[in-house]
């Protein structure tokens, strides 16, 4: 009876729920149909899917693009919070560490909003309370007067030391980019520590983190190339993946795109990623490269989640896919609002 314990039943329960939810996400055909719709039609369409309660609830206070935006954020936050409640034991620990990404996004948004002296209501509209900082905690942050006060209110959070160190420089230069980079680097470092903390299933979580860091680094390198940044980029890369920072720095120094892709291919072992890199060779538009890489990441995660059927991976696959569904719908709604043609919009969707 080795390996059979009451814990495994809980894993099976949670992972099955995630699989069912994943199967209820919007399929590719519906995206293609939505490409031919107008904004009110899209709003009505998503009002008939999982987003119904948010669209109904917010329909009286918002309209048009704002309704879609706010409904999507609310739905995402609600979904993530409900998942955090239903996953058991160790899975909850890993899911909570993963969701801290949203804390960083929210805190940086609040800091930026405070810096620009925006109305609290405006800041609140763009927050996604999906992490550990819930609606109440975020409201308290929004009510603070200045970025410094916001930072002080965060004392005791994991990322407070980074904010304390970087905030004066960010306020001085008026740019929060460096602060944001440092926060995310801290986030990934913390994820790795959590995965290596000796909790059961940590090794599988670590596989996902490595994949995510690798893809993010490769995306960043493509972005840097597109922006013709040739100097020292070590600061912009995330450590802990399967490439060392020095290797990545060397890659970013290469002149031609072909040479860059060739050297990258020599270091990559994942076959789907190799194929995608080959496909990317012909593409010049940055967003197409990013979408292709994201697609590989999601496919690879899905494959890994089948290999480790009852682990953290099915939960993470759902969380990631949901994130991209919301991003897709937002892109669709925004694109339709400014009247972008369907083919152009399609290249921005991860489906």
């Amino acid at each position, binding site marked *: *009876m080795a390996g*059979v314990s009451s814990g*495994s*039943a*809980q894993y*099976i*329960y*949670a*992972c*099955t*729920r995630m699989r*069912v*939810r994943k199967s*209820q996400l919007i399929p590719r055909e519906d995206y293609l149909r939505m490409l031919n719709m107008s904004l009110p039609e899209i709003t009505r369409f998503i009002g008939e899917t999982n987003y119904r309660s948010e669209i109904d609830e917010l329909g009286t206070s918002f309209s048009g693009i704002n309704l879609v935006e706010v409904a999507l954020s609310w739905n995402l936050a609600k979904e993530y919070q409900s998942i955090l409640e239903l996953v058991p034991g160790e899975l909850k620990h890993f899911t909570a560490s993963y969701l801290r990404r949203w804390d960083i996004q929210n805190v940086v948004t609040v800091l930026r909003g405070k810096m620009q002296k925006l109305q609290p209501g405006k800041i609140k509209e763009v927050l996604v309370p999906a992490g550990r900082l819930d609606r109440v905690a975020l409201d308290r942050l929004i009510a603070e007067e200045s970025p410094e006060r916001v930072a002080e209110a965060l004392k005791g959070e994991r990322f407070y030391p980074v904010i304390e160190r970087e905030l004066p420089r960010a306020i001085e230069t008026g740019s929060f980019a460096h602060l944001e980079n440092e926060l995310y680097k801290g986030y990934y470092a913390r994820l790795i520590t959590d995965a290596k903390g000796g909790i059961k299933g940590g090794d599988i979580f670590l596989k996902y983190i490595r994949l995510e860091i690798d893809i993010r680094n490769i995306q960043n390198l493509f972005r840097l190339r597109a922006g013709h940044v040739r100097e020292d980029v070590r600061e912009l890369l995330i450590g802990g993946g399967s490439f060392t920072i020095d290797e990545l720095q060397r890659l970013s120094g290469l002149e031609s795109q072909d040479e860059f892709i060739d050297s990258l291919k020599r270091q990559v072992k994942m076959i789907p990623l190799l194929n995608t890199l080959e496909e990317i060779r012909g593409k010049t538009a940055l967003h197409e490269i990013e979408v292709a890489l994201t697609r590989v990441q999601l496919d690879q995660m899905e494959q890994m989640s089948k290999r480790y059927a009852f682990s953290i991976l099915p939960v993470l696959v759902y969380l990631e896919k949901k994130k991209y569904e919301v991003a897709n719908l937002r892109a669709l709604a925004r694109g339709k609002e400014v009247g972008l043609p369907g083919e152009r919009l399609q290249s921005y969707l991860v489906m």
Partner: protein
Amino acid sequence: MVDVGTTLEMVQASQVGLKAVGAGLAVGLAGVGTGLGEMGIGAAAVGATAENRDMFGLALLFTVIPETIVIFGLVVALLLLF
């Protein structure tokens, strides 16, 4: 001197007893096996039903499929006893 009659009775009695033990083990172990099998299926069935109520009938059906193993156990037990 060994009392042959008593010994024969004892052997017969223990034969019946061991048959009963065998029958008990057949049903009991089959039941444990079924329980272990149903654990995973049941957990998944509850998970699927929680997300989608229409799954209830099908999920219930899947959950009771390992019950057939108990029936095998029961058949073996009955064969042993009668």
